[in-house]
């Protein structure tokens, strides 16, 4: 456990996932965006424009560093080289939050570039908790762990996702990153009620919220199959779930994630404005 600051020092305002094409928009007039999130792996080069832009942004905005490559949910030991790179980045940037996923992406040295699912068992619980401990020890700070968007289930799963995440947080002292779109995607894919899920989620552990867009498909049986694409606007039922979360848990730092088919700044800023209106309706 950590006798350290809370896992998130982000302000309870809207933020956006930073894209280099928006650099001058953000520097000129960031409103309504109060903070930015970057993908850690994009800023692990030695220099050049990415690092220079990041330095300039860090001087102006609270930043959240979001890892997509640590494979915390994997069977293999954590990649020490990658952990060292994260430590270096988090060390010089001193971001307001660091987060990663309840997922795996690397096996046998191959990085598969997707957030892959894991069964929820006592064995995977121990392993994920060990990995979270190792990350927090290496970084010298508590992290946030994000609930996944999943498309299938494991016959061997023996715990529900909320119990699994809550127990990881209890054992390691980490906080949670609550992706409300992922809830809608995963619950729809499991034919479960997303409202019941968000109503049971331990919001006191949540240091950051993600909102992103998803695509709609069908499985072999014609059942809805939602895909976490981050390539379009946040869907209306996800906004409704989000408003419900904020009404119960209070205002939380909220990120608009739009990673593919990235729109022009005004479109992204409008999504942030919509989150900001919901945040402004409740006390922080």
């Amino acid at each position, binding site marked *: 456990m950590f006798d350290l600051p809370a896992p998130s020092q982000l302000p309870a305002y809207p933020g956006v996932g930073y894209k280099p094409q928006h650099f001058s928009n953000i520097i000129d007039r960031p409103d309504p965006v109060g903070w930015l999130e970057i993908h850690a*792996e*994009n800023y*692990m*080069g*030695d*220099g*050049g*424009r*990415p*690092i*220079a832009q990041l330095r300039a942004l860090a001087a102006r905005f609270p930043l959240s560093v979001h890892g*997509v*490559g*640590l*494979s915390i949910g*994997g*069977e*293999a030991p954590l*990649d020490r*080289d*990658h952990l060292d*790179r994260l430590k270096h980045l988090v060390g010089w940037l001193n971001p307001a939050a660091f987060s990663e996923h309840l997922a*795996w*992406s*690397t*096996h*046998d*040295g*191959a*990085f*598969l*570039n*997707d957030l*892959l*699912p*894991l*069964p929820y068992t006592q064995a995977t619980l121990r392993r994920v908790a060990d990995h979270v401990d190792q990350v927090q020890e290496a970084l010298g700070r508590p992290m946030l762990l994000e609930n996944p968007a999943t*498309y*299938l*289930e*494991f*016959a*061997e799963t023996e715990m529900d996702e909320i119990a699994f995440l809550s127990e990881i947080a209890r054992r390691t002292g980490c906080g949670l990153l609550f992706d409300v779109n992922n809830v809608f995607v995963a619950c729809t*894919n*499991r*034919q479960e009620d997303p409202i019941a899920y968000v109503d049971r989620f331990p919001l006191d552990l949540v240091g950051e919220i993600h909102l992103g867009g998803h695509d709609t*498909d069908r*499985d*072999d*049986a014609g*059942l809805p*199959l939602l*895909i976490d694409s981050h390539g379009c606007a946040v869907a209306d039922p996800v906004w409704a779930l989000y408003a419900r979360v904020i009404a119960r848990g209070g205002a939380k730092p909220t990120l608009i994630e739009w990673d593919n088919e990235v729109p022009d700044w005004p479109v992204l800023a409008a999504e942030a404005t919509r989150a900001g209106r919901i945040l402004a309706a409740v006390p922080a």
Partner: protein
Amino acid sequence: MNARFARALLDPGQDRPAGLTGPGGAPAGRRFDVYRNNVAVSLTEALGQGFPVVKRLVGAEFFDAMAGIFLRAHPPQSPLLMHYGGGMPAFLETFPPVAHLPYLPDMARLELALRQSYHAADAAPVDPARVTALPPERLPGLRFRFAPALRLIPSAHPVHAIWRANTEAGAPRPEPGGQDVVVLRPGFDPAPHPLPPGGGAVLAALMAGATVAVACDAAPDCDIAALFSLLLSGGAITEVEASP
């Protein structure tokens, strides 16, 4: 589980792993294919973004199919996709369907070099006057250190001209003949430049620490003035050392 999952992800010919279900315990079916698709599509996109001119030269449809073969044989070995594709030049050299495009591996080397240069460490270049103001007799004894963003791509093909023809409207038609190319990054934007004949051999020797006199032996006819003018204007030299 990870091993079976990973093998089936990368090999569409493999059965989907057992023990994966959809709602009500139905077999996962297409649900597993979402992950297969994410892996293949995202890595194919990463390769397409990393090798835009190679992609243009072979056509998008051909490139994506070739990327599918490459990514299964050479999945990324690191989560840093900025470095993905280091094996592409060697792959292209032995991939029979592109054997009729002998310059393609060097084009992949050039595109890798541009990407590496973009992410390379910053370094302050020397004031060009530190070289140009020296009396000519001092030049043969000089050694240099070069910016981390500098890359040299020697080629037996007109690789710079082909690159220009595929990135610049109205660029001249490539003429046959080899071209050594240097990638320079004076600010944050790397750009390739053709070296004068013999320049590749001279620059390679200088980068290995040779003095100008020794490096010139590698290509005695090389236009050294043109080579240094290019290197200095591109911010390629970060230190000048006079031999004792």
